[in-house]
């Protein structure tokens, strides 16, 4: 059953929820939009918020997190796990980023469960906020995402003027709504308005990619060095497009001992960095074009081979934030439809 709430009352709603959850909401300290711990007052983001610079995956896969501490005493090494984190409620996550969470769940679930990610993820509630003003870099609709609709959140909010329509999506969302006070029942008119808002938002997304048969297309041109060298020419091998991507999850593990206290950290890593794959004697992706190829193919070919979904949600961050305007939509669109030049794979390792 859809409900609604006046925008003025969002502050009350969040305060109510903050009894059970740590609330994260869009904030822009120093001009950088990120999901930050809500300060208990500010709901101004309803006016300025389009999307965060730092993707909300950072709430589940932080840029840096402690895996465990270790210390040596008379009896040898002792390992100590960090305390369990708080239950998070992410308020205002966009449908593209919510889908991204569902996509990277695949990596952290499976044969081996990743407790750091899954503990945070399983205890969290995602409250989606429909995006009514998609940017020129956004291309979510090409990847089967609608900017103001989502099945990947627990609750979905839609801006219908002075009010937000509140729709429960998941069982957790229904449960949350059932014990939330201060929501009014939505009218037929409200729901019709929301439908219109969603449609308008969908049509505002003008950037398109041609993801048709992309796995096959990329497989066919995988060995076309000339193509990839051209694509990679202006890339500067920084980590912006990967570290800030909502679906990039690759990480690194490092140890440190500081004043006798040992800690093992995990931090995000990027396939754009040459050291990412560097072994002492050789590096399979020392060349820039190979790293760019890996990035594109991981998202649009390898990941769907393993998990069906393309690991891109068209959030547009990589397009917006790239220092040299390397635009993945242009790259994907330029991957030839037909069989490209194929390297002959004989004679063992290439």
């Amino acid at each position, binding site marked *: 059953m859809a409900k609604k709430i006046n925008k003025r009352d969002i502050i009350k709603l969040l305060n109510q929820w903050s009894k059970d959850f740590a609330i994260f909401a869009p904030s822009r300290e120093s001009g950088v939009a990120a999901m930050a711990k809500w300060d208990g007052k500010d709901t101004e983001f309803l006016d300025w918020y389009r999307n965060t*610079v730092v993707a909300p995956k950072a709430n589940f896969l932080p*840029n840096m997190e402690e895996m465990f501490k270790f210390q040596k005493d008379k009896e040898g090494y002792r390992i100590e796990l960090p305390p369990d984190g708080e239950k998070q409620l992410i308020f205002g996550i966009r449908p593209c980023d919510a889908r991204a969470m569902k996509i990277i769940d695949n990596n952290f679930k499976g044969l081996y469960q990743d407790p750091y990610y899954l503990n945070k993820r399983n205890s969290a509630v995602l409250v989606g906020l429909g995006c009514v003003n998609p940017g020129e870099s956004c291309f979510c609709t090409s990847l089967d995402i609608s900017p103001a609709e989502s099945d990947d959140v627990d609750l979905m909010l839609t801006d219908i003027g002075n009010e937000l329509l509140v729709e429960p999506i998941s069982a957790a969302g229904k449960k949350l709504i059932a014990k939330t006070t201060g929501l009014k029942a939505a009218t037929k008119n409200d729901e019709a308005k929301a439908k219109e808002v969603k449609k308008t938002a969908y049509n505002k997304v003008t950037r398109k990619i041609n993801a048709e048969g992309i796995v096959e297309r990329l497989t066919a041109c995988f060995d076309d060095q000339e193509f990839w060298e051209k694509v990679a020419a202006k890339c500067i091998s920084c980590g912006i497009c990967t570290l800030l991507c909502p679906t990039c999850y690759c990480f690194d593990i490092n140890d440190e001992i500081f004043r006798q206290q040992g800690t093992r950290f995990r931090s995000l890593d990027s396939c754009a960095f040459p050291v990412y794959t560097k072994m002492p004697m050789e590096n399979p992706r020392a060349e820039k074009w190979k790293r760019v190829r890996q990035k594109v193919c991981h998202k649009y070919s390898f990941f769907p081979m393993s998990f069906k979904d393309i690991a891109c949600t068209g959030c547009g961050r990589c397009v917006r934030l790239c220092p040299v305007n390397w635009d993945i939509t242009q790259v994907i669109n330029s991957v030839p439809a037909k069989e490209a030049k194929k390297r002959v794979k004989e004679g063992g390792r290439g």
Partner: protein
Amino acid sequence: MEQKLRSEARALLEEGKVDWIIGFEPGSLKFTTTPLITKDKNDTERLVINPFITNNLANFLTEIKGRVGIVAKGCESRSIVSLIQDNKVARENLVIFGVPCPGIIDLSKLERLAAKNRDELDEITREKDRVIIKADGKTSEFPVSQALFDHCLACELPTPKEYDILLGEPTPPIANPTAQESIKKLKQLVPEERWAFWAKELSRCVRCYACRNVCPACFCQRCFVEETEPQWVLPAPRWQDNLIFQIIRNIHVAGRCTDCGECERVCPVKIPLRSLTREMYDIVGELFQFKSGMDKDADPLLTHYEEQEAEDFFR
């Protein structure tokens, strides 16, 4: 100007005088350009020069092999000269298209002035000392001092000194004092506050290394942050390590940094990096009367010395 650039660039490729052309072409977003790095003479038709040519193209010289025709604004020409000083590129392998640059428009500033996102603006034009924005059918004007990048307002060499072909007429420096405002403000703080400021700013750093990778002066094959034996800093984004990275990066590029402002522009989390680089630029200017990238025959800053200098740093 663009026509001349296109035909000259095409001719260079056709005559085999260069292997590569590096310039700017229109970007995929509004008011952007993107580096064009090509061997194909037909691509030269896409070359542009406009108030949005932000990148420092000298950055690509260290990875490209062969002879290069390169478009260079004042700051780029200085970066190129600096690379020549460091023996990173050879002057004879370059054909430099000098572009007198009256300053590049800072879209972040316009976003604040217009209270709109950049993709919501319809038109941006530069007229002498004003920048004119059209949006929602309304026109507004701002003086360049509010609309250009800080480093452009502080630019000492808008017209390249080192070039082969100059495109257009020389343009004078703007020399607007507001460019150093943020550094002045910082200097008014007590030391503890300054340090706390940087600790906080650097705590946003995600270690994407865009500041380093976009910098023509950062040309190390392997950066010290990637060293493992010993591991100087943790290769993970913790503010202490982030700050050490920035401090050492600035010391490494001392005398190479030409205040092109790219590091600050590209930072996705808006760390005011130019308040570091520009201060270093001024420090070496003050201590050693050194201006990077002005004289290709000069020694690099830190390989040179005078017998009498900087003695007050020593007991």
